[in-house]
């Protein structure tokens, strides 16, 4: 797994490349928390067009990040998940707290449009 971080106002944008499993989630958790604190972020967007595998560890990791963002009054949003990733998110009914958008622009719009 490779992670690329960028920010836009109070949004931490995380581009994930590769496989999301229990092993790589450990690494992701640490790196995301670190960068989120550094930019004093409020929201997180996970851009997933480069994700070629995800199992249920990905759900756990997203819910974990959701809790962190919620503490800051923020949200977590997924951009560009492939069909499989979206299917796994839907199965867990996680889409009720974390929305998926077909691209980064719409994800940003959603977060900046809301309060």
């Amino acid at each position, binding site marked *: 797994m490779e992670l690329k971080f960028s920010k836009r106002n109070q949004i931490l944008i995380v581009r994930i490349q590769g496989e999301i499993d229990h092993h790589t989630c450990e690494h992701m958790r640490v790196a995301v928390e670190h960068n989120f604190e550094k930019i004093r972020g409020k929201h997180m967007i996970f851009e997933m067009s480069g994700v070629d595998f995800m199992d249920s*560890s990905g759900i756990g990791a997203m819910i974990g990040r959701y809790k962190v963002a919620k503490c800051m009054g923020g949200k977590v949003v997924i951009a560009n998940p492939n069909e499989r990733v979206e299917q796994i998110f839907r199965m*867990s009914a996680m889409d009720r707290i974390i929305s998926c958008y077909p691209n980064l622009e719409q994800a940003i719009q959603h977060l900046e449009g809301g309060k």
Partner: protein
Amino acid sequence: MKYENECVTYFAAKSQNESLTRVLVTSFLATYDPTVSEITDVKTAVSEAVTNAIIHGYEGQDGMVELFCGYAEETIYIEVADKGKGIGDITRAMEPLYTSKPELERSGMGFTIMEAFMEGIMVVSTPNLGTRVSMYKKLSRE
């Protein structure tokens, strides 16, 4: 059962080996012209079961995990076993969203995904002796 091809692997219960098991099962399947979606189904189910053996079975302690792959009559058979902690209440463990380790950011969706992506699943477990998850899936092979 007599398998057309079979392969059993014992590996250290380390998270770095999760990807190895996916690679292994993908390569095992490759001879049988699976669809991309069948490969992903089986890979995901294996990943769930192997992760469970490592996290829940051995809880970070040393141990060996077994992964069996067998193929017979257009059907892929998978077994994942550990000699770890075991499961007390299998019915509850298999409920969607139930997890005994929310503090490790588990979602409780592992068994649900195995059930959704494979055709059949059977779990045999004895507390303190270990757990064996057996799954199968018929390939479409058009």
